């Protein structure tokens, strides 16, 4: 609000403040107020509400009598039920597998594609949007398309059988142990082009003088990238990581569209667990507790990032 405070004396120089000037003064507040109110209520207010509900015994409807941390106790017990796996155990192990592979492969593939595209090749203008295009699709479309493609009776396997390669077998999407990897495949397909664009922008931002100097010093291409380019891309890595990590944690629609939960619920992520328990099973307290745990997971990633960013700015 400091800008408003400094402009006020200048505008008030005419002593009589007309309605018009007063309106002009108030304009920033008026314009900002709705989004401010909406954010306060619908983001932070509801986070607090969810946290509160997770300590109640809410079932179909919210109930407001605090009944202790029973929902968390149940989740905690389920965390260690691995054989046969509880739905929560499946959800969090899937989160681990999906999160690591999705972020890792997207970063690696994105960087690789960006480096290739950065070799001043012809047709870059055509190739770039081709790689970037999947990002423009919604997860539902990606999910349905890959569901058909990976379905053994419909897509890749069937097609190759038609071509005569009848021993080909790829049924991951129907297999409880591998179905989560198909979610990784579809997710990577969608996001790696976007990561590529981020890295490409980073590569273009690197001063060519540095590269030339290194080349004069006799650095090989491998050394050039390993020692100079990739370290210089550190901020891009960080931004890409943050974008991908939060996309991984909030993934829900991809699992639903691609696998509808997988065989015996084996493709669930925590967000699927949260929706199932809150809205389908009328166990609002358990659903809220799982949502709070997801929030804390995201915070564990975002807060250190924000902290380091802000510290750097303060410097």
């Amino acid at each position, binding site marked *: 609000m400091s800008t408003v405070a400094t402009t006020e004396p200048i505008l008030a120089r005419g002593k009589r403040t007309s309605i018009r000037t007063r309106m002009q003064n108030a304009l920033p507040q008026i314009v900002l107020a709705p989004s401010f109110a909406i954010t306060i209520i619908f983001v932070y207010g509801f986070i607090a509400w969810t946290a509160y509900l997770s300590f109640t015994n809410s079932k179909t409807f919210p109930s407001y009598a605090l009944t202790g941390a029973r929902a968390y106790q149940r989740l905690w017990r389920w965390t260690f039920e691995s054989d*046969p796996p509880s739905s929560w155990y499946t959800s969090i192990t899937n989160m681990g597998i999906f999160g690591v592979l999705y972020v890792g492969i997207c970063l690696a593939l994105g960087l690789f594609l960006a480096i290739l595209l950065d070799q001043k090749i012809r047709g870059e203008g055509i190739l770039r949007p081709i790689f970037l295009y999947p990002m423009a699709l919604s997860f539902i479309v990606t999910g349905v398309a890959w569901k058909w493609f990976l379905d053994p009776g419909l897509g890749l396997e069937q097609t190759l059988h038609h071509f005569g390669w009848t021993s080909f077998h790829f049924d991951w999407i129907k297999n*409880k142990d591998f179905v989560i990897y198909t979610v990784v495949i579809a997710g990577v397909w969608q996001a790696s082009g976007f990561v590529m664009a981020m890295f490409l922008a980073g590569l273009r931002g690197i001063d060519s003088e540095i590269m030339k100097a290194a080349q004069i010093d006799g650095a090989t291409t491998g050394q050039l990238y390993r020692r100079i380019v990739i370290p210089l891309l550190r901020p891009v890595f960080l931004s890409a990581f943050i974008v991908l990590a939060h996309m991984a944690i909030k993934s829900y629609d991809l699992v639903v569209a691609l696998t509808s*939960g997988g*065989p015996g619920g084996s493709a669930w992520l925590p967000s699927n667990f949260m929706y199932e328990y809150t809205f389908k099973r*009328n166990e609002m307290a358990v659903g809220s507790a799982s949502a709070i745990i997801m929030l804390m997971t995201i915070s564990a990633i975002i807060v250190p990032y924000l902290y380091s960013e802000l510290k750097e700015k303060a410097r």
Partner: protein
Amino acid sequence: MRKFLTSTAMIALAFAGATAAARAADVKEVQMLHWWTSGGEAAALNVLKQDLAKEGYAWKDVPVAGGGGDAAMTALKAMVAAGNYPTASQMLGYTVLDYAQAGVMGDLTATAKKEGWDKSVPAALQKFAVYDGKWVAAPVNVHSVNWLWINKAVMDKIGGTEPKTFDDLIALLDKAKAAGVVPLALGGQNWQEATMFDSIVEATGGPEFYKKAMNDLDEEALKSDTMKKSFDNLAKIIKYVDPNFSGRDWNLATAMVIKGDALVQVMGDWAKGEFVAAKKTPNKDFLCYRFPGTEGSVIYNSDMFGMFNVPDDRKAAQVALATATLSKSFQSAFNVVKGSVPARTDVPDTDFDACGKKGIADLKAANEKGTLFGSLAQGYGAPPAIANAYKDVVSKFVHGQIKTSDEAVKQLVQAIDDAR
């Protein structure tokens, strides 16, 4: 900053004022929340719209983004929480009772008396339509899930006959397998697997056992050897599905039977709608048998119109809706299209096809004998938390996360206990 907060508050107030002003009342209108928007279902519901139009009541759908029951229930929750009740909403099983317990349902007892619902609606259904002695919902139909849907051409080709016992069924499936067709068409989604398992439990343990285990949730019954045997039977029958069954939608499984790629599907009578839509005739193109060992009883689920506690000036419209819903003419017209059977037992079966006639007769008999049971998989045996825990266990057993029937029974008892 203070100015900022003041303007924020003022705009918030303006929003609140606008929503309050938007509430207007119109007596001659029925506001209806439902998810019957696709082909046959929408056509079936049109009959009701026309009946009401004749009496001068306009029909207004409450829009639901996304379609499907889950989205509708989420929308309903929000409406009720805001105190903005629809005249009625399509509801399933325990949802009606949940809302009745929350005290937001209306009271149709006077209408029910006048129309004689007490006598004509099966007692098992009244458990969900009557709360605390008051009628709070109007049942629209009765679906039953213990059916076999068989392609007649395939049946003739393999020389099969109607299976009378579970072992007969296995023998029949073997014949189909030998003839090179997929014996059992199943969609590997948890509710479909559990729906089939409902029938298997009754076939294995008989009606008494089904009621004890699946409706009363008696722990002794759930832990018993009969339950283990039911899981063993499930393991037996699941061997006859094609390798690609996981995640398939139910109507695609039905399509496999219609096309003759598969012999039989175990599914509720909504599957008949698919056969009829494909211009197939019962007993000529397809056969409907009761799941062997469940003959004489009906495992049901039912669609209800839950009636909300609307303001007085809208009550007349609500009564008209309820009366029309349970009128014999609508019950017949609607259920002929929907594939289910009427929710009252005194509706003439003249307009129904062979399967529908059998369904009506079975329902009547089961009602008199006390063998009309709620389907646990469809949410008529226990509240959603328990029903879903049950579906989890069955599905994990089918897909191999749970490996033995001993483990399955242990998990089932534990999961139901957790959800209670």
